[in-house]
């Protein structure tokens, strides 16, 4: 029996997910805020390497949960934190981050080339230049993002045992690629399923405006190692939102939209492979989405209300053939060029 001692801080309590059995061969790992894990790891490695000194400034461009995670950690560790973002940042999140003592810097104009993503990066570089000794966690390139998932892999092996398949959404690539590499030491045949959204360039779709946030990208993060993936799925916002609601209704798990996307794919895969043990990643809780995903009126107004999920994804041979609804491709651990037929960004 483990002694139940008081936690030193909230991070120690919420960093690890709860592992929940959803079916005979399907487990969900429900995080309070998954990004706390890489954010903490990145900051602590930087502290140990002397790159991040007490009281310094941390600055990052993000519009989502990575910013919240950094704001919580910087508040507890007494670092100054500036989050650079654009007008899409949701107001409740902004206020929460500011309440933690961080400065939220909103760029007002998209750059002529590269849009908001570019103007945010420009602003970030300006801030880092102005403040000597400041530190940028760079979740998309910093290899300590994927490396930060060792404790997640530990709780999975301890709670589940043998694992055949890991299903998770891909944004920076840190969670799925990092966790897979740790797990493959023990289960070299682990089948890894990446879940992206239509209109994200990560796995070769043309860039488009996307309603489902948290996964997907308009750029190719270095932390996405394409050779990790056996299988890739693209899901639409409407499908992910309905699956999120089903996860809530069926299992009382109140999670965010990327959890729904992962759940839909994992449930399908687990039913198709009843003898395989499947683990699925749920990266954040549902509170941020109460007025959107959990609000039928909002779903109707945005034309993303579905009554039923497709039984199966549409199998495509080329990423550009994935259109409008849930699709998948046998990626077979190839690199990007091999699957897409051209280099990233050309």
């Amino acid at each position, binding site marked *: 029996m483990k002694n139940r001692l008081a936690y030193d801080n909230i991070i120690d309590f919420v960093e690890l997910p709860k592992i929940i059995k959803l079916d005979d061969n399907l487990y969900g790992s429900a995080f309070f805020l998954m990004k706390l894990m890489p954010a903490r790891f990145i900051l602590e*490695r930087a502290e140990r390497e002397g790159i991040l000194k007490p009281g310094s400034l941390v600055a990052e461009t993000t519009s989502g949960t990575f910013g919240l995670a950094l704001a919580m950690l910087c508040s507890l560790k007494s670092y100054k934190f500036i989050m650079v973002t654009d007008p899409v940042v949701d107001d409740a999140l902004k206020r929460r981050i500011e309440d933690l003592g961080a400065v939220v810097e909103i760029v007002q104009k998209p750059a002529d080339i590269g849009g908001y993503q570019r103007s945010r990066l420009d602003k970030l570089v300006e801030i880092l230049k102005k403040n000597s000794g400041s530190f940028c966690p760079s979740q998309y390139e910093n290899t300590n993002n994927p*490396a930060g998932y*060792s404790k997640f892999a530990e709780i999975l092996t*301890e*709670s*589940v*045992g*043998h694992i055949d398949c890991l299903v998770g959404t891909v944004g920076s690539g840190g969670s799925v690629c990092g966790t897979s590499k740790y797990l493959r*030491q*023990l289960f070299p045949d682990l089948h890894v399923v990446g879940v992206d959204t239509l209109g994200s360039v990560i796995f070769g779709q043309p860039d488009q405006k996307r309603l489902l946030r948290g996964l997907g990208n308009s750029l190719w993060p270095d932390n996405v190692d394409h050779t990790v993936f056996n299988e890739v799925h693209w899901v639409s916002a409407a499908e992910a939102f309905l699956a999120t609601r089903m996860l809530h209704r069926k299992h009382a798990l109140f999670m965010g939209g990327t959890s729904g996307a992962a759940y839909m794919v994992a449930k399908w895969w687990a039913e198709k492979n009843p003898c395989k043990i499947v683990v699925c990643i749920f990266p954040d809780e549902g509170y941020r989405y109460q007025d959107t995903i959990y609000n039928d009126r909002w779903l109707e107004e945005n034309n993303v209300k579905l009554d039923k999920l497709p039984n199966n994804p549409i199998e495509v041979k080329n990423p550009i053939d994935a259109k409008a609804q849930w699709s998948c491709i046998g990626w077979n651990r190839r690199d990007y060029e091999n699957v897409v037929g051209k280099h990233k960004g050309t």
Partner: protein
Amino acid sequence: MVDSIICNSIKNLELKEGRGTAIAHHGEILQGMFEDAGKLFRGSVTLPCHIFGSQASFFPKKNSSKIVVDPEWKIKSKKAAELTLKSLGVEDIGGRLMIKSNTPLRLGLGSSTSDVNASILSVANSLGVVLSPVTIASIAVKAEIATDAIIFGERAVLFGHRDGKVFEDLGGNFPPMEVLGFNSDPDGEGVDTLAFPPAEYSWQEIEMLRPLVGLMRRAIYEQNPKLIGRVSIASTEINQRFLPTKNFDSIKNIVRKVNAAGLQASHSGIVVGIIFDSNDVDKEQKIHRSLSLLKDIGYDNVWRFRTDKLHLEAGL
């Protein structure tokens, strides 16, 4: 330190010949640098092996403080006997310590730990004292700097081999396994385990070890030899940088071909074991096939043991 009641009773005791026996181990299932409450420690899980072991006899002599050990070169055992007497608060007793062992040296079977444990037990026994495993381990580590968890027998523990203490009880005994063991480098000269420098783990390796500990806990909970096999292969892989295992790939191939539960290798020695689930109905056939495949790559001196029945049956 043992309290004064025991010490007083020792003084009044009739001294007698003391005996102690200890098993050896078969190298590590898992070894590395782990974290406990924010601090790093060197830890290992060793595979108990009862076919090798040591038997010590202690012939005490009053009004002497000198211990003579036979064979003379077993100075760690001598030191262990002295430390045992000291920890019991006894000052005027010396004697003769005789050690018999059937454990081959320089393979990583923990021959020295086995001698040391047997020696501590024999001295305590001659004074009529029963020491706890925790105390024995703490004396052993002082005698030999790095010591293994053999005193805990079939109980699976994550043991700090340089601290001489259990960092984590893994929650149960090892599952019933059968092991085919052999010297992976019979023409080599072996490894002096204690002279072998401690591995310098990178922080990446320390992170890589975490999921291995997780699966180790699970393996004990499930009593699943296959999961133990996964842990030991992964741990041995990490250790290749510090001590490459001879014919590692060929041996792994045999494990795959016969569908054994796994393989384990000493992390500071050259002994290797192929692990089988004792409850596997095809076990005998798999063992038979492994023996023949091992022979094909030059290993014909192979021993066999179980992990769940740890009485010392060695031909001492």
